[in-house]
């Protein structure tokens, strides 16, 4: 079996963060979160655990909604979605996310597509995983320029949902809602705390020694490279083919 790809590590980490959920929704153009959810489903099936439902927006195969695009939000509002993924052009130390743009609103010098469902789903989905591969100070800022969705809310505001973890190409963080701060949980192999600190524009908590993100066990890896990659192909053909090619390359090396 070839070397573990960085992306495989992210997918396995996501499956770990989703442990125990019954229904996870994945936004469009999110192949790594989708793969993590599919891996979780495959693992649950293998281990005889309760069935995991996955809703992938924009997929025919993995989208059972029949009431239009409103149904995802209705479903989330009813508490029927346990986990969701959000990214952000900017994410700050209090887990506020910005999907609108940099600089002054509304004439942003850099304008991104917009907030999509974030200003709602972040409030009502219990386990929101922040996922952003690029780990640089321009993404992880001290304070976002625009709050598409806030990390925490004042007392009295209906807020069953919120940030659970932040996963990047360098590290995995948890989020403490009381302290309104991220905590570094593990650093991916080949990277260091110093590197994570230098690439992060906000301060975060961590122990003196932070463990390395663990390697997946061979059985999990085999499931990922077999069944999950095949399932992924339907919705993200380009991504699945690219990953298969990388795997062939790493096996040949």
């Amino acid at each position, binding site marked *: 079996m070839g070397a573990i790809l960085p992306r495989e590590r992210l997918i396995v980490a996501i499956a770990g963060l989703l442990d125990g959920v019954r229904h996870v929704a994945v936004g*469009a*153009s999110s192949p790594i979160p989708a793969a993590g959810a599919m891996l979780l489903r495959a693992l649950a099936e293998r281990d005889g655990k309760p069935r995991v439902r996955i809703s992938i927006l*924009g997929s025919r195969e993995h989208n059972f*909604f*029949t*009431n*239009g*695009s*409103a*149904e995802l*939000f*209705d479903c989330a*509002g009813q508490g029927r979605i346990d986990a969701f993924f959000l990214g952000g052009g900017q994410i700050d130390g209090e887990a506020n996310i910005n*999907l*609108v*743009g940099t600089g002054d*609103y*509304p*004439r*942003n*010098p850099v*304008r*991104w*597509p*917009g*907030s*999509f*469902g*974030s*200003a*709602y*789903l*972040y*409030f*009502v989905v219990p386990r929101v995983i922040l996922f952003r591969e690029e780990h640089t100070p321009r993404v992880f800022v001290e304070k976002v320029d*625009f*709050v*598409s*969705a*806030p990390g925490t*809310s*004042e007392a*009295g*505001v*209906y807020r069953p949902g919120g940030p659970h973890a932040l996963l990047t190409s360098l590290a995995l963080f948890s989020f403490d809602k009381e302290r309104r701060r991220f905590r570094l949980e593990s650093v991916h192999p080949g990277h260091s705390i110093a590197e994570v600190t230098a690439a992060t524009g906000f301060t975060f908590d961590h122990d003196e020694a932070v463990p390395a993100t663990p390697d997946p066990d061979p059985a999990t890896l085999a499931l990922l490279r077999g069944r999950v990659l095949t399932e992924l192909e339907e919705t993200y053909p380009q991504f699945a083919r690219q990953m298969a090619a990388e795997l062939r390359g790493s096996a040949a090396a």
Partner: protein
Amino acid sequence: MTQPTLDDLAAMVPHGAKLALPVDYAGVSMAMTRPLIARGLRDLHVVCLPTGGMQPDMLIGAGCVATIETSAMTLGEAGGAPCFTRAVREGAVKVMDATCPAVHAGFLAAQKGVPFATLRGMIGTDLLANRPDWKVIQNPFSDEPDPIVAIPAIRPDVAIFHCPMADRDGNVWIGRRRELASLAYAAERTLVTVERIVETSLLADEVTAAGVLPALYVEAVTVAKNGAAPIGLWGEYPADMEAIGRYAREARTPEGFRAFLDGADRLLEAV
């Protein structure tokens, strides 16, 4: 019954209209984009249910739009919406930034004929801070402080979308793309293009009837073969990613956008 032309449909959209358009995967009448632009429409208030893509981007590029109300503007895998991004930077268009379920809530209120719908979330966002039309109210059924956001009804003058089929009575088959029904319920006038007209009533069979938008809500229907292209149409044809990618590249400058429009005009004339 003679079918109206696409230009006839475009003529039903007045200047300054509030025009509602669906998300890319629900069925966009791209065939109507050019007739709308050719009509020289001005000052449109475009509402996207709940996000917009190439069609509203082209309307912005052509100078038809004064206000865009949407949760996002994107060409999907092809990247950001070029004319929208440029217009925002130049301040050429007013943006009413929203979040998907808030747009749905506005349409739902219109569907019910009530002034507003309430929705969780949004409190503490800069979206809410920049939407004076959204109001935070107290939940009247709670003894505790319980703020909740009230979203006013969105009542478009016109809605336009594309579907696989309609029948001779003007019933339109929308399948499970229920956001198309939301558009039609809320809009004063709904204009639909379809791949084909079928001879049997879509209401005759309970299986198709379940996915029918009745003619009651539909002002006009006309055939536009491949009318969603280059965006795909569910159950019919996939998106032409190459063509959307070409648009994404060429429309990055105003000149490129114009050339894209002119190039497509020449192609049409050659047919």
